[in-house]
């Protein structure tokens, strides 16, 4: 499957139904449901080990659940070949992890251009796009430096720029501010959410920090393998 321009669907952008995934005797996901639309920012929260990262990895097609389905724009991920899923992750999906996971041998600008090059963009255009995103993320002064030569905050902004440069439809952010101090973390969140809103990208934001979740539109809590949207939760105990 190529980038799914031709596969317009009227349903949600990304939907998970009855996901089940176990690690040994532990059920990380046990019937989890999830849905996100274009332009939405959804925080996924929950205690440590509750399965929130597992949910993100299933949604992104990085791991395959033992039960349930994930549909992206009407296509079931598990029905795709590995090559198709890889292509999806390079084009439609963008990723930001806790520790940037930049390629240490490449400069920051080259790191941002890399997914574009892998998706077939020519070198000049990829470099130009990388520099444009570096300016937007306020890190154009480190373009020629390698990841080991920049601060944690700068590195994470480079990682956000890399995730956004390919104009993904979904950004998966797993504890994107987990390794940053409060001020840097908030700036990264401001830049990430502003850019995502401008490009109408959906963001699946896994975090254990309420202050980070406060940048989202709604919140899903993963608990006991289930995912519950509590944005409009009301105590049904009257």
């Amino acid at each position, binding site marked *: 499957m190529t980038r799914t321009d031709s596969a317009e669907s009227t349903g949600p952008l990304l939907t998970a139904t009855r996901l089940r995934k176990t690690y040994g005797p532990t059920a990380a996901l046990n019937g989890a449901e999830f849905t996100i639309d274009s332009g939405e920012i959804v925080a996924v929260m929950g*205690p440590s080990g509750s399965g929130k990262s597992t949910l993100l990895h299933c949604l992104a097609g990085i791991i395959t659940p033992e039960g349930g389905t994930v549909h992206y724009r009407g296509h079931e991920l598990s029905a795709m070949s590995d090559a198709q899923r890889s292509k999806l992750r390079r084009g439609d999906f963008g990723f930001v992890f806790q520790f940037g996971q930049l390629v240490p041998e490449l400069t920051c600008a080259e790191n941002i251009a890399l997914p574009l090059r892998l998706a077939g963009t020519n070198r000049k255009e990829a470099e130009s796009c990388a520099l444009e995103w570096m300016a937007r993320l306020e890190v154009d002064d480190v373009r020629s430096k390698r990841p080991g030569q920049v601060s944690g905050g700068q590195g994470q902004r480079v990682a956000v720029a890399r995730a956004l440069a390919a104009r993904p439809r979904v950004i998966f952010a797993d504890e994107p501010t987990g390794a940053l101090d409060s001020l840097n973390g908030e700036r990264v969140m*401001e830049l990430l959410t502003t850019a995502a809103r401008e490009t109408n990208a959906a963001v699946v934001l896994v975090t254990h*920090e*309420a*202050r980070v*979740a*406060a*940048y*989202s*539109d709604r*919140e899903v*809590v993963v*608990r006991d393998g289930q995912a*519950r949207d*509590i*944005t*409009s*939760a*009301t*105590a*049904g*105990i009257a």
Partner: protein
Amino acid sequence: MSISNTLLGLLESGPRHGYDLKRTFDERFGHDRPLHYGQVYSTMSRLLKNGLVEVDGVEAGGGPERKRYAITDAGITDVGRWLATPEKPEPYLQSTLYTKVVLALLTGRDAADLLDAQRAEHLRLMRELTRRKTNGDLGDQLICDHALFHLEADLRWLELTADRLDRLAGEVGK
């Protein structure tokens, strides 16, 4: 917040009219709760009576809004004392939330639902403050951060309590 101490402190940089004091207060501290003119003038008459301010001049036309106030030496001492006195931290020991959780457990209602509903309400306010902070100046950011840190502390308590509900249910059921 002590309005009289704040107005007195604003006067330390120089004499001001009542309407000027109100405007400065609202700009700096009154984002959510601007002062009424009546509050300003009743506060100033009290400060006058206590010798902490004096009338520095009156424009033609009379009326309280025409008076210009200046801080006295006693007023300056008062501001210094107030600034040097630490605010008493809130003890947070009479928690309505804790009471609600225990009552829900005692009466067989769903305490987890109650905690989730409260969590949603806290996050709703945190989103609102985060939006205000993102679009605001440094003053807005600091005011919102203060509130956000408190709300975050509440949320951590909600999470902790949710994790301990089974144990708490056992204890209150004894």
